[in-house]
């Protein structure tokens, strides 16, 4: 029984860790799409953030500088996306794909030019990355049954970025639903004409939404390369941006449900790491490739109608053209 409990706590612990970049990216997509700008480019922005964070952290020895530069780099990519989609009313999916491809090529190219090792960055020393924090008293209560292990294993021992992420969930929710800016942001995604009629700039509102998404992607990227991992590896996002997008769609563009979906994905991911090479009753050992595709298959199955009717923000993906 304690064996099972330990396994459960360890899997839940891994879930929280893995969900960090996913939640940040999904919240980014949420902010952008609530303002009606589709963001397929989450993947590329995250990758760009991860590369910038690892490179700057390695060169300066400061994880914080890496984090700040990752956010700045992603703000730059977000501005590019905004320039194409908002100012020039270009196709948002195309712009996002272009950003993904540019970054997937540019990051290893620059990495090779700077470090001369195959496009990755060298491993980061411990000062240049975010290391797990031990919450106060975690070591004291470790031996208390159940609750002690929950506190010391599950809640304690994550990096600052994970705690920041879970603090950002209510913050983003509050911003969207309780502030005037959030109200306008949601309105611009549903009925931009009304917002325009009220004398508020549709374009500036959307730019701000896209920039918020950029900043969150920067955090997501930094958490990949300087908190979860300890270097930049080419293609290290491995579809997490798309997965975040899927989580947002399951979550019906709402923060709470979106985060739940992220946790579900992270859980399947944590589970697959534990299932590898394990003999299961009835089915035997599952080939590792099938375990790896679990989150993706789950996405398709859930999208096939188990989440009920999904309604996107009404103006999602439609550039706003002012009536003359």
């Amino acid at each position: 029984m304690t064996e099972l409990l330990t396994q459960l706590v360890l899997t839940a612990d891994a879930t929280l860790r893995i969900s960090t970049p996913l939640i940040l990216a999904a919240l980014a997509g949420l902010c952008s799409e609530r303002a009606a700008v589709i963001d397929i480019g989450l993947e590329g922005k995250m990758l760009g953030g991860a590369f910038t964070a690892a490179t700057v952290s390695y060169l300066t020895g400061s994880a914080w500088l890496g984090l700040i530069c990752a956010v700045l780099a992603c703000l730059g990519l977000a501005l590019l996306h905004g320039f194409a989609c908002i100012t020039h009313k270009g196709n948002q999916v195309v712009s996002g794909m272009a950003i993904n491809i540019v970054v997937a090529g540019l990051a290893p190219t620059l990495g090779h030019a700077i470090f001369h090792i195959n496009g990755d960055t060298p491993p980061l020393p411990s000062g240049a990355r975010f290391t797990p924090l031990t919450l106060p008293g975690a070591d004291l209560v470790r031996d208390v049954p159940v609750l002690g292990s929950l506190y010391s294993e599950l809640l304690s021992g994550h990096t600052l970025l994970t705690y920041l992420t879970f603090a950002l969930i209510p913050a983003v929710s509050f911003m969207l639903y309780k502030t005037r800016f959030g109200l306008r942001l949601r309105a611009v995604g549903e009925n931009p004409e009304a917002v325009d009629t009220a004398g508020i700039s549709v374009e500036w509102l959307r730019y701000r939404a896209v920039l918020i998404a950029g900043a969150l992607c920067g955090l997501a990227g930094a958490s990949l390369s300087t908190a979860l991992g300890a270097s930049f590896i080419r293609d290290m996002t491995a579809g997490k941006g798309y997965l975040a997008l899927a989580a947002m769609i399951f979550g019906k563009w709402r923060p709470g449900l979106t985060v739940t979906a992220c946790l579900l994905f992270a859980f399947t991911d944590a589970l697959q790491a534990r299932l590898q090479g394990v003999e299961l009753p009835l089915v035997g050992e599952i080939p590792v490739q099938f375990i790896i595709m679990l989150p993706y298959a789950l996405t398709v199955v859930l999208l096939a109608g188990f989440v009920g009717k999904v309604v996107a923000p009404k103006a999602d993906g439609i550039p706003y053209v002012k009536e003359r």
Partner: protein
Amino acid sequence: MAQAKLPGWVNAGLIPALNLLTAFAVSGLVILAMGENPMTAFGYLIYGAFGYGEAVGYTLFYATNFIFTGLAVAVAFHCYLFNIGGEGQAYLGGLGIGLVCLYLGDLPFWAVLPLTVLGGALFGAAWAAVPAYLQARRGSHIVITTIMFNFIGSSVMTWLLVDRLKRPGSQLPETSHFPEQTWMPKVHELAAQFGLDLARSPVNLSLLIALLCCVGVWLFIWRTRWGYEMRAVGKNPEAAVYGGISPAKAIMVSMLLSGALAGLMGLNELMGVQHRVIINFTNGCGFVGIAIALMGRNHPLGIVLASLLMGALFQGGAELAFEMPTITRDMIWTIQGFVILFTGALEHLYRPRLERIFGRGEAEVAP
């Protein structure tokens, strides 16, 4: 509309050319930032793509891959469906082609060829069928489902190549070699039979099949009822329903055709060069297809031209990476990304200015 004011050659020639030049200029800045001379780099690129016979052959070989995947994306796009799953569909299509070659490869070439075309098309279409059905009947997001099917397809193929189809005694995740009579004849071999001496290169009969597909797609989209229904649904689903067209059927037709076209990519890569199914043989061609379709304005002729450009970029880029060690092959993706950005998302970048220059005369003529 504002767009109608421009003369045709500005719309179809000057604007794409300007956008393309901008993409190369930005790429040049990146090369400059890495401390290399962009002009020298582009010199290597152009020489590597067109400078000698073998290079031209390689350019055409890559272009063949891109024609298939580009057509695939374009067909779906005419129904306003964003098929990002070309990569997975091409990968699974390759499996279909491989199975035919491995198990029916004893037949003569003229009998094998139609069967492989059928195999590739069927497997590709099958891989597009689930996302298509979900879009048509369940309204789930085709962009997301096709992306997910890329990942799932990759896992399935790895499992098959590692666990089920691996050549006995081999350490590599790949199938046995196809029998020799299933190999696609190369262009220089065909030319030799007519007494022509062309440089050896991997460009093969698949190029002809790809061009035939272009003609077929053109006929299908603009000359058949199904093509018309597809375009009608793409332009305005509500109006199409009012006109007695079923959007669900149109979605299924265009996605299945799209998957089938992507699935044919293996003809060129597997039967032409590899002669076995290897892991990740698609190498991103499915994604390049998106760029090809955008640059080619979803028209078969445009797609051929765009494929030539991308083929040149791939072949020339390999030469560039060889001549300038600072620049790796990843740079090709960067250039390609900028091309997508400027020809696709920022296609209207120069339009307002050009309308001011070229639009005035005709605007006065118009009532």
